[in-house]
C-alpha cells in the first residue's frame, strides 16, 4: 500500500476551534482540522456528527460562530461560496446543489460558462461535458435534459464532474459515492488518487470504510460535533476507526458481524 506520508510543510487548509450552533443544537464544537497539499484526509463520523456542517463552513455556505481558518498559510475568512471558490476550494455537496430546471451542461458550467463572442459557447461546453462524464463512467443518455429527470447516481456524477472544472487547490467531496454504481465508484476513487498525485488537498467524507482505507492518508473522526481522534491510515484498522465513530468498541456493526459469524459456523 502506498501510504503517502503527509508532508512536513504547513497545511494548505487548517481550521482551529471552529464552533457552529443551530438554534438549540450545537452542531460543531471546537473543531481542529487540517489538510496538506497532496494529501487525502477522510472525514468520518456517525450520521449527524457534523461532517457536512464542517464542509459547508469551509466552503463559505455557513459562517462559523467561533474559530479561525488559514488557507495556504494565510488567515482567511470566507463569507460566501464565491470567496471560497476564489481561494481555490472546490466542493461537492452532499445535497449536490444542482439547479433542477437547468440541463446537465448548464449545471456543469454554472458560474463559469464558456463564451464565443457575445454568446455562450454551447458547442464546446457540450463537448466538454461528454468528455467529463465519460471520464466518470457516467451513464447519462442526454446532456440536454433537465437534471430533475436524472437518476440519483446520474445527478451525483454531474455534481462530481463540476469539481473537475477550474483549478482548485483543495477539493472537498461530501459522500461523493453514496448513490454511485460500482463502476462509477471505482472511477471516483481513481479520481481522488489522481487529484492527490497532482498535489491537491482532498477532503473525502464517506461512510464506506473500505473506500476510506483505500484512498485516504489520514482519517479525522467527528463524534457528536466534536473531534474524536485523528488516525493515520497505514497505522490503523477499520475496527479502530469504527470504534471512534460509534464511541464504543461493541456496537451494532460488531454485533452484527459476530452474529453472522456464529450463524455461519452453525450452518
Amino acid at each position: 500500500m502506498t501510504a503517502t506520508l503527509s508532508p512536513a510543510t504547513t497545511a494548505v487548509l487548517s481550521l482551529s476551534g471552529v464552533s457552529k450552533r443551530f438554534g438549540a443544537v450545537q452542531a460543531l464544537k471546537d473543531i481542529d482540522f487540517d489538510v496538506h497539499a497532496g494529501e487525502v484526509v477522510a472525514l468520518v463520523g456517525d450520521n449527524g456528527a457534523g461532517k457536512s456542517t464542517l464542509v459547508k463552513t469551509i466552503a463559505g455556505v455557513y459562517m462559523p460562530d467561533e474559530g479561525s481558518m488559514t488557507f495556504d498559510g494565510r488567515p482567511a475568512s470566507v463569507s460566501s461560496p464565491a470567496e471560497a471558490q476564489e481561494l481555490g476550494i472546490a466542493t461537492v455537496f452532499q445535497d449536490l446543489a444542482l439547479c433542477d430546471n437547468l440541463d446537465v451542461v448548464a449545471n456543469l458550467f454554472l458560474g463559469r460558462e464558456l463564451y464565443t463572442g457575445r454568446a455562450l459557447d454551447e458547442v464546446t461546453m457540450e463537448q466538454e461535458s461528454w468528455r467529463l462524464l465519460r471520464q466518470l463512467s457516467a451513464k447519462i443518455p442526454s446532456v440536454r435534459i433537465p437534471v430533475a429527470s436524472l437518476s440519483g447516481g446520474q445527478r451525483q456524477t454531474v455534481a462530481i464532474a463540476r469539481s473537475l472544472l477550474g483549478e482548485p487547490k483543495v477539493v472537498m467531496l461530501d459522500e461523493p459515492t453514496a448513490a454511485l454504481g460500482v463502476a462509477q465508484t471505482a472511477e471516483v476513487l481513481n479520481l481522488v488518487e489522481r487529484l492527490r498525485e497532482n498535489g491537491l488537498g482532498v477532503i473525502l467524507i464517506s461512510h464506506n470504510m473500505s473506500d476510506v482505507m483505500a484512498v485516504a492518508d489520514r482519517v479525522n473522526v467527528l463524534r457528536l460535533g466534536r473531534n474524536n481522534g485523528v488516525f493515520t491510515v497505514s497505522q490503523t484498522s477499520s475496527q479502530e476507526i469504527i470504534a471512534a465513530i460509534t464511541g464504543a468498541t461493541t456496537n451494532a456493526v460488531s454485533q452484527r458481524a459476530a452474529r453472522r459469524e456464529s450463524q455461519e459456523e452453525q450452518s
Partner: protein
Amino acid sequence: MSASTPTPEAQAPADATAALPADLQDERLIASQGIGGFVRVFLSRLRSGDLGSLPVVVGLIVIWGAFQMQNSAFLSSRNLVNLTQQSAATGTIALGIVLVLLLGEIDLSVGSISGLSAAILAVGFVGHGWSLPLAILAAIASGAVIGAVYGLLYTRFGVPSFVITLAGLLGFLGLQLKVLGQEGSINIPFDSGLVKFAQASFLSDVAAYVVVVAAVAVYAATRLRSNQRRAAAGLSTTPVVTLAVRAAALLLLLAIPVYILNRDRGVSYMFLLFVALVVVFDFVIRRTRWGRSVLAIGGNVEAARRAGINVRAVYVSVFVFCSSLAALGGLLAAGRLAAANQSSGGGDVNLNAIAAAVIGGTSLFGGRGTAYSALLGILVIQSISNGLSLVNLGSPERYMITGGVLLLAVIIDSLSRRSRASHGRA
C-alpha cells in the same frame, strides 16, 4: 504528524442521560430546563431570528405609537372599536387566503366573490324577500360552489390557480354586476339582523371578560393535560411556572384590549366571529389530519401524494373554504355598509387580503404560516389606513405614507429574521 492520538472519547455513562426525558437525551442539545432555560431559549431565539410573529407585533406597536403621536384620538377606545369593526370583513377573507397560500396557491378573486356574495344577499333578501338565513346560506353556498369549481379546474386540468382565479376575478365581477342589475346599489335595511350584527352588536362588558377568562382557562387546561400525558410518555414537560407565566401573559394580552374596548361600545360580535374563526382554523391547521395534509402539500406536493394523501380532495376543500370565507367576508362588509353595490369587494380588497396574510407571516410559496397571520396582518393594514384617516393629508401623501409604513412594518419583521436567511441543507 503521524503520531496523532487515536483515543475515542470515553462513552458517556448511559445513566446520566437515561434520567432525562426521551426528547432531551441528545448531548448536543443545549439544556433549557426551568425558567432560566426558558429565558435562555427566548434570548437565543431572539438572536437567531426565530421569533414567530413577535416582530409583526413590534411593527404594529411602532405604527400605533406613531399615529398616536400624530393624533391622540388614534388610541381612543372609540377608534379602536372602529378598528376592530373595520378589520373583521377583510380579515375573514384573509383567513381564506392563508389557507390557499399554505398550499402554495393563490386566489385573486376573493374580492369579486365577496362582492358577488353581497349582491346575492342583497338581491335575495331585499329584492326577492327571502328570509335572512336563507339569503346568507345562498350567498355562502355560491361561494362554496365557486371554490369547488376552482378546485376541480385546478386538479383536473392543472391550470395555475393564478390564472383560474384571475378569470374568476373578472367573471364574478361581471356576475356581480349582473345580479345587482338595474338598480346597481341596494340598501340593506338598518334594522335587519345582518346590519345590526355588523354595526351594533356588542358583547356586554361582563360577557367579554367571561370569554377572556374562559379562553385562558381552556389554554391552561390543555397545556396541563398535555404536560401530564407527556410526563406519562417519558417526554419533556413545560415547567408549571413557565405555564403560569404564559397563562398570565395571555390573560393580560386579552384582558387589556377588552378593557379598553369596553370603555367604548365593547367587543363586537363581528370581531368576535372573526377571532373565533381564526382560533378554529388555527386548531384545524395545526391539530387535524386535514390541516397537516395542507401543510404537507404546501411543503412538497409529491411527497404528500406518495404518503397516500388524497391531494385532489385537499385542494378542492381548501379552495372551497377560501371562497366560502370570502363570501362570508363579503356579507360582513355588506352588513357594515348596510348596502351592496357595484364596488362591493372591488378596489383593494383582493390586495389587502393577500397582503394581510403575507405581512402576518404566511409564505407565498406554501407550507409556512398560521391562521393568526390573518389577524395580525389585517390589524397592520387597517391600522395604517385608519391612522391615516385621522391625519389630514392629500391623496398623494396618503398613498406614499401608506406604502412607506407598510414597508417599514415588514422591514422590522424581516430584519429580525435576517440571520435565518443563510439556511442550507445536508
